[in-house]
Structure formats: structure tokens, C-alpha cells
């Protein structure tokens, strides 16, 4: 009896790509709650782990007196940090409320602006904490992780990754 011939030249079938609408939906859900995009795509275990890791990172950031970054027109790199904070998803609102008492994303340009002085005053309270640097690093890392999760959800949905 002969062995069945296996054609080694034919590559494994590529993972199926979802319609674009579902791919965007997966990315949107991934932003909404870390891991939700993976849950939508049927990656349950990964979804649970990602949710726990990113939420733990964010929670540790809050507990360690981390501050959400404000976009300062005088410091262009702060725009990147603010976008990174926002990438964590709606839970990011918590860190802004705890730091500034309200939802604010940008410092006024004018140095004498009372709002700018008030926001910087609130930030100084956080900066004075011994663990502020750790906290802010945890918050920024949570945002970076969620950006990677959004991109990963996109890759899975478009069939680039299984």
C-alpha cells in the first residue's frame, strides 16, 4: 500500500479575512475596552489576558499617582503622549478626572492664562508624589499596549495573523 502523496509546495491556507466593516468594528471595540476586539474575533483566552494586563497596568498607574498628559502647544511631544493616553480607551477619563478634576486634553498657550496656571497647579500636586514617575509610566504603557492590541485585532480580522 502506498502512502498518500502530500504536496509540500502548497502553503497552508491563509487565515480567513473578515469584511472590512467587521475589521473596523474589531478595532473600535479594542479601543473601547482592552481585549474586547479579540473577544469579538473569537480569541477568548487572549481577550481575558489582555484585558487583565492592560487594566492592571492602568490601575497601577492610577494608584501610583500617575498623571494624564496634557497637550502643550509649547512642547510638541506632549501631543504624542496625550494621544497615547487617549488610546487606552474611555477608562482614560478616570485618570484625567483624578488629575485635573475634569475632562481636559490641552493646556492653553498663553502662560498667564488662569486656566493654564490652575491645571499646572493640579499637575504639581501629582508630580510631588514619590511614585508619580512610575504611575505615569504605567499609564503611558497601558496606552501603548492598547495601540498594539488595536493593530493586532486589525491583523487578525484582515487575515494577516491567525
Amino acid at each position: 500500500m502506498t502512502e498518500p502523496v502530500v504536496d509540500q509546495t502548497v502553503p497552508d491556507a491563509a487565515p480567513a479575512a473578515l469584511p472590512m466593516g467587521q475589521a473596523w468594528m474589531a478595532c473600535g471595540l479594542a479601543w473601547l475596552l482592552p481585549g474586547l476586539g479579540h473577544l469579538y474575533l473569537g480569541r477568548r483566552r487572549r481577550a481575558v489576558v489582555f484585558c487583565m494586563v492592560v487594566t492592571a497596568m492602568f490601575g497601577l498607574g492610577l494608584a501610583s499617582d500617575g498623571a494624564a498628559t496634557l497637550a502643550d502647544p509649547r512642547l510638541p511631544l506632549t501631543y504624542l503622549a496625550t494621544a497615547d493616553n487617549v488610546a487606552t480607551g474611555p477608562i482614560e477619563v478616570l485618570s484625567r478626572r483624578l488629575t485635573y478634576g475634569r475632562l481636559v486634553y490641552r493646556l492653553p498657550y498663553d502662560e498667564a492664562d488662569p486656566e493654564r496656571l490652575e491645571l499646572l497647579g493640579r499637575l504639581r500636586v501629582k508630580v510631588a508624589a514619590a511614585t508619580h514617575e512610575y504611575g505615569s509610566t504605567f499609564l503611558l504603557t497601558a496606552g501603548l499596549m492598547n495601540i498594539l492590541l488595536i493593530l493586532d485585532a486589525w491583523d487578525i480580522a484582515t487575515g494577516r495573523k491567525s
Partner: protein
Amino acid sequence: MIRSHFLNLSIFSILVGVFFAFLTQTGTRERLRVMVILGGSMIVLSLLVAYVMYPFPFR
């Protein structure tokens, strides 16, 4: 609030290790391997850099 530098560093390294293990690998064994290598090397390298920086600044 955790005040210990080492504890903060360890928690950070473990979380990053777990995250990348699940992001890049599929099998349990491979994930564990990445977790240990990534988390462990972050902790060891940080201690090494801290040791090298210990004499600075010179007084």
C-alpha cells in the same frame, strides 16, 4: 501605592512579559518561554544598569 523600586520594576516587567507572550505566541510552552525570557531579562538588565550607575555622580 507601591514605593519599592524593585517591586514596581518587577510588576512592570512581568506584565510586559505576559502581554508580549500572548501577543506574539500561540502555544502554552512558547508563551511561557517568552514570558520568562522577556520579564527576566528586563529585571536582570535593569539591576545591571542600576549597578553600573551606582557610583554616579562622582563627588
